């Protein structure tokens, strides 16, 4: 049944290849969906012979789709897992990765929590459930209520690897669907704390974006610089929770795909990334 669907999909793309040029399927990170949408709109204005279809669903879904052939580009907001590299090798697929933008992950609390900066160790303590009250990190006497993403989220995986050192999030973490839901929840729950792409949290009422302390000195760095992300400190890595947003493609890809990626990396493409509150490469 799946196979026949796949054949039908191939047949349809085959047809459109003849008449109107290629169709590119883009799938993956929910963080990147809106950004990709903007890129595709701008690209298709200039080049209407190509159709690009975008779906979200999480970084993990994007790679699964890339490996089973139902997507041409996987949008992935984290590094590949070893298991995913193994799966690619098992299917004899060569993957190549292009970084298309940078992103800072910010931690936010409700303004009533009374904290504005945390160290990485404190973040780890809070999100693994060892720190249960904001009082323990110098804030108000309020119990911590954790909010996070589902496990297919690249942000979830990135945060776990880089802040929790691979340990599990506390069981009491509320799992919500998408970063926008986290914004909503934390702005209404005075005990709430959550993490996500910095662009989602800028200028949202009721939220405080946490400054992350650099180990070894007393500095703390904010991922935000007035009303846009802190480009400098995210690019240099001085803000500790920064990551690369990647396009992953099969090596045997069509020409149309590399043309699209060329556009994304161009000045115009990178301008769109900064308009969407992500961090352009240069």
């Amino acid at each position, binding site marked *: 049944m799946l196979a026949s669907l796949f054949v039908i999909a191939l047949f349809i793309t085959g047809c459109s290849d003849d008449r109107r040029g290629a169709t590119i399927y883009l799938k993956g990170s929910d963080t990147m969906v809106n950004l990709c949408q903007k890129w595709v709109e701008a690209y298709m204005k200039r080049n209407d012979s190509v159709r690009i279809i975008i779906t979200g*669903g*999480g970084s*993990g*879904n994007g790679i*699964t789709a890339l490996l089973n052939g139902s997507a041409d580009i996987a949008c992935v907001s984290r590094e590949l897992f070893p*298991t995913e590299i193994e*799966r690619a090798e098992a299917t004899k697929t060569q993957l190549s990765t292009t970084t298309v933008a940078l992103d800072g992950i910010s931690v936010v609390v409700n303004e009533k929590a009374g904290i504005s900066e945390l160290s990485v160790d404190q973040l780890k303590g809070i999100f693994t459930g060892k720190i249960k009250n904001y009082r323990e990190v110098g804030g108000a006497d309020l119990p911590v*209520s*954790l909010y996070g993403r*589902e*496990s*297919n989220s690249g942000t979830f995986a990135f945060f776990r690897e880089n802040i929790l050192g*691979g340990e*599990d999030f506390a*069981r*009491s*973490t*509320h*799992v*919500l*669907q998408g970063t926008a*839901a986290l914004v*909503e*929840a934390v702005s*209404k*729950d005075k*005990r*709430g704390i959550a993490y996500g792409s910095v662009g989602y949290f800028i200028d949202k009422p009721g939220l405080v974006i946490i400054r992350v302390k650099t180990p070894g000195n007393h500095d703390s760095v904010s991922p935000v610089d007035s009303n846009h992300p802190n480009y400098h400190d995210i690019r240099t890595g001085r803000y500790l929770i920064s990551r690369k947003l990647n396009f992953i493609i099969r090596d045997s890809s069509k020409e149309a795909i590399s043309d699209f990626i060329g556009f994304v990396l161009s000045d115009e493409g990178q301008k769109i990334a900064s308009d969407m509150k992500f961090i352009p490469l240069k």
Partner: protein
Amino acid sequence: MKRDNGSSFAVESENSVFRSKKKSFRISSDLFFAFLVRSAGLLTFLLVFLFFVLMIYQGLRVFEFISPSDLLFSETGGTRVYEWYPVSQDPRFSVVPLIVGTLLTAIPATLISTIFGVGTGVYISEFASPALRRSLKNLIDLFASLPTVAVGFIFLTVVATFFSDLFNPASRLNAALSALGLSLIIIPQIASLTGDALRAVPRETRLAAYSLGAGKWRTVKDVVLPAAGNGISAGIILGFGRAIGDTMIVLMISGNADNLVLDPFSSVRTMTATIAAELGEVSPGTAHFHALFFIGLLLFLMSIILNLIVRALVKRFTGGKKEARSV
């Protein structure tokens, strides 16, 4: 009476003479539609059957990866932990917190819905004036068809805030809130099935009660409600089934934390929400993938059992009546 029958016979035979030229066409189209309907029925049966087989096959394959006891608890350092955390580096597959989470939303939802649903059903079918009854019935049907995602959205953005101001729960999104959300779609269902059950009580039963001098309320309470008891219970159990099976409301407003707790004001994760949130991400053929199918199998079995109970109740309800009439 007999003459009437005779004349209608005559008309029919006249008709068939009139149409005799088209007879061959009629037969073939009859056969065609019979074939169409029969194959549609068979196809549905086949699909359900295949679905069941697939569910069992994929669900039971979880035991190729982990032992049955792993689905109940895992042992770390001599202590048993009941946790669902399949994406951890040390994966845990206990379905216990998920089952508890499901029951912690479904049971309160069914209790609330029983009180309000049966009450509404009794009022509409026994006490409301005919005009009011019609408009209330339409309203109830409208409520029953509310998209669950809309209910979830309203609860997430508006009701959750009221609720936490009112009760100051351990977490803002919690089981009790989900139970309220679920009630919104189950109350109409129970109300409408209660109404059906009450209307199925024969008129003679009520008249007998009235003739013994019982008033309206006495009749409803002591005669009609007990007579419709099985039908109402069937409605309540169907409502419970809906509460267990609903996905969208609990996914949005239960908070999805897999706490193993009995406090309805804390956040829980249900079986359905787990499947919905995680099935998209798993790679096929892993323990996690088959564990999700196993949860689906459990849900399927629950709904089969509930349906069997309902069937037994309804059979007693209608079967008993037929016996009484034939005697």
